[in-house]
């Protein structure tokens, strides 16, 4: 009997926490489970409980988002917020999120990468907030970068995009782009020209890049001129910069076999196979760069907090211009979207807006991990002050309009995850020397085009 009493007591104790009095009348789909509610102050009975989630990269980001949640909790009337840090990229944030949506336990507002918007929208997992946006005088799609907003306002039923398309799938949290993180100690030791000066003089081309890479590679068998991770972002820029790309212009078919795409891929292949200047493809180059053994490390702004801990002289430079005259950079982005099953869409929309104000974005950008998604000179000027790196302008050059960056985007006419699963291994085959560029070009779109019919 005592055992039963003890178990029952524990069970009842498990129902809540000292700091929590979740509203009894809150609907099941969005009410605050006692677990997360422990992180918040006890809400007033009439408050609506809203849970939200991002994918932070480190504890510092978690702390900042937690503080933002606390601040907004005080500012938003009638809403009680609970912030849930999601798993990291390696922990399959989206897989877990989708499983929670299927189980009906997902948060009201959550962040997803730009490539996943179509998948979530076409499955009916996220809310089309067009009506809410139309009823919000302060909201304008023009306040944000055009690339992300094209995809976030794309209406798959009409094929229209923009303010009047009848679709608003979310609001971009931030943007980012690639730059080359430079180990200046290695570059100076090799006597190679300073890439920052070459870029300033308009001489930062593929040939100049290869020259620096080869000179630094000559420093030793364990020193590499260039390093990049093995996913679509790094290899995509070489295709973009030569005038090619993954998809046709209307994003309805594979364009990996165009002469321009193949030329870009061939140049990247030569970095690995002919000139042997790159860290082995498929190996994570970040530890090698941080160990001081890579001269030019291609990565996004999100790598900055980690690179700040290295003990050599470093800076960043924009990507080199390719045959097309641009660097072919990406405009990476992710968005806050609203759970289609939320019981409180108005409050969720209010939160999504509050999370993307210039003030909130400024707090997050101060960490150095990303760039505000609002187009404003004030935001850009503010970003330049978040040093090191000294040459923050390199990132802004990457997303500048004249650099013509390609916005990371979903595939409304097909399945992006499936396309990625076909493209990634095939490109890896080329870059590791297992497949020739010609063979790749001959067969890749036969297979990749199938994802557009799914």
């Amino acid at each position: 009997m005592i055992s039963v009493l003890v178990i029952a007591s524990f069970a009842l104790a498990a129902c809540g926490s000292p700091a929590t009095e979740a509203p009894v009348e809150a609907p099941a789909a969005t009410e605050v489970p006692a677990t997360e509610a422990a992180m918040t102050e006890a809400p007033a009975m009439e408050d609506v409980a809203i849970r939200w989630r991002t994918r932070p990269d480190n504890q510092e980001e978690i702390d900042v988002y937690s503080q933002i949640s606390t601040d907004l909790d005080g500012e938003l009337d009638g809403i009680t917020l609970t912030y849930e840090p999601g798993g990291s990229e390696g922990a399959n944030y989206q897989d877990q999120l989708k499983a929670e949506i299927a189980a009906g336990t997902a948060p009201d507002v959550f962040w997803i990468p730009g490539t996943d918007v179509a998948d979530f929208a076409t499955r009916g997992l996220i809310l089309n907030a067009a009506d809410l946006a139309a009823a919000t005088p302060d909201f304008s799609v023009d306040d944000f970068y055009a690339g992300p907003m094209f995809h976030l306002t794309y209406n798959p039923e009409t094929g229209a995009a923009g303010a009047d398309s009848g679709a608003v799938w979310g609001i971009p949290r931030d943007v980012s782009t690639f730059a080359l993180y430079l180990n200046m100690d290695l570059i100076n030791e090799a006597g190679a020209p300073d890439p920052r000066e070459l870029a300033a003089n308009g001489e930062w081309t593929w040939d100049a890049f290869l020259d620096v890479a080869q000179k630094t590679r000559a420093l030793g068998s364990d020193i590499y001129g260039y390093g990049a991770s093995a996913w679509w972002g790094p290899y995509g820029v070489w295709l973009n910069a030569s005038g090619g790309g993954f998809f046709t212009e209307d994003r309805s078919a594979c364009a990996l076999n165009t002469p321009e795409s193949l030329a870009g891929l061939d140049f990247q292949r030569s970095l690995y196979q002919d000139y042997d200047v790159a860290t082995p493809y498929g190996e994570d180059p970040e530890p090698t760069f941080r160990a001081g053994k890579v001269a030019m490390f291609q990565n996004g702004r999100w790598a900055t907090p980690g690179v700040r801990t290295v003990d050599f002289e470093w800076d960043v430079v924009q990507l080199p211009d390719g045959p097309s005259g641009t660097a072919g950079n990406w405009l990476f982005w992710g968005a806050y979207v609203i759970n289609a099953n939320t019981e409180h869409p108005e409050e969720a929309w209010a939160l999504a807006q509050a999370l993307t104000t210039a003030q909130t974005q400024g707090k997050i950008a101060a960490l150095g991990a990303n760039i505000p998604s609002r187009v404003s000179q004030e935001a850009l000027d503010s970003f330049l002050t978040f040093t090191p790196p000294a040459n923050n302008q390199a990132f802004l050059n990457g997303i500048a309009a004249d650099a013509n960056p390609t916005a990371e985007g979903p595939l409304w006419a097909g399945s992006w995850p499936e396309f990625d699963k076909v493209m990634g291994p095939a490109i890896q085959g080329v870059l590791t020397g297992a497949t020739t560029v010609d063979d790749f070009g001959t067969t890749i779109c036969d297979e990749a085009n199938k994802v557009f019919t799914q």
Partner: protein
Amino acid sequence: MTTHLPTDPRTENLLRISIIWRGLFTLLSAAGAIFLWTGTLLPDSPLWQKIIITVTLVTASVFSGIGAVQISRRNHSGRMISLVVDYLAFVICVVAALTIGEVFIGIDALAETFTSGLPYLGIVALGYFLGVLDEYFPQKQQNSETSLKVASRWVMLGGFALFLLQVGAINGILYFLGKLAQPAGIVSVTGVVIFGLSLWTMGRAATAQALHVKTNHEQILNGWLFLSPNLLGFLIFFAGPLVLSFYFSFTDSDAFNTPSWVGFANYAKILNVRFALLTSPDQLARDVVNIKVYDEVGRFIFGNRGILFAAADKFFWLALRNTLTFVLFAVPLSVIPALILSNVLNSKLPGMKFYRAIYFMPSIAAVVGISLVWQWLYNATVGYINYFITLGIDFWNNLFNLAIVDPKIQWVSDEKTALLAVVLIAAWQTMGFNTVLFLAGLQNIPGELYEAATVDGAGAWDKFWSITLPMLAPTTFYVVSTTTIQAMQVFEQVFILMNPAEGPNNSTITLVLYLYRSGFQNFQQGYASAIAWVLFIVIFGLTLIQFQRQRKSSIYES
């Protein structure tokens, strides 16, 4: 309970109520099943849920009706049926009440506040210690409680009460009651009370006597009662999902929307393959198969000709190929070294227990942690494995003025070595556990056999070959079977170690990984279920072959 005594009026009344209750329950269950299909009850539930609920309700209704009849005939089977039906309904209502009260998700909240209550659990421990003292220093009164024992009890109760207060039991109770005040909560609590009362009624000794229950009937019921937690767990968490996945394998379920029946389409896609003759080794697949349907999986070249193997789902066949290759290497590498090691460790030398523990440690370490450590070790540029290879080559080159080229193996980024890297981790991790199993087998071999062999002049190898191996056959069979099944389901090491998990050129995509990708990344749950059943058939077939070989070669059979 073998003698039949007259039934007391109270029991008679309770039996009448029970018959009415059983009849009412029969009608309610049947009505529930009907309302489910008319759309009055749970209108949005998918077909598979409706089928499960209908089967449950109809079964409950039929048995409850039979129970009512049997109770009216004063037959013991009426009591047994009543107890089983009410027990299951009682459990369902309790679980429903706890779920509605959010007890299960609140466990995390308890974890957050648990540490703050630990000092009060210390008071409970102090109370227990007082009780122990009382046992060591008993006072003179034999038949009455000592003051120390009373104090122990009150201290424990007080400490536990303070602990519950500290961890938030008051808030928890209020929250729980608030949740139960909702309609669904009230229904579930009412169910708990009604089914509980019915159980109590049927459980009474007087009721049992009135229904002519015998001792063996009671024993059977008690047996099932003790078995029920495990049995219910098996049915709900294993058999249930198994049946569901079989159903889903015939649908296009995506976990979000109502699935549609697609018949054998998922299986047909998996098994849709083509073999085509190639007139030259580099002839394109599109020249010999319909490339809109099939993708090239591989080609077998014989001189200037060859055979192309294409499939509608090439990833499945690549995964099957990789999984079988993994099994082919991982199983021998997990079993043979373990067999050798167990023979080494099966000695009386001092320190052997320490080494047994050391070799067993990888088996109990978390796979994720191990894989992350190996990921660093395998790093081609800054990993320790390549570092030591380079040191070794430099040493020999310097010592003998050789020119051995450092291979700088790209363990996880080269398609030729990626699967091998996973095999090495799996073998390293499994070997310790298999060693312990072999050790247990070795220690069961009678020492007289070895003594007799020694007298006959047998050497160490003869003893191992003619005594150890045959006598270990049952253990070896068990080890090989379980290691094979485990290897066929390889997932964690690949998922953590490789980035992307499919590895370079899909060289590490395995069946379970592909199943996960289909089910939880692409959310083709129906298709993933079909893959799971095909995997089951493959594993079942392999295990069957092992069983047959074991029967033929077993020393005990012969």
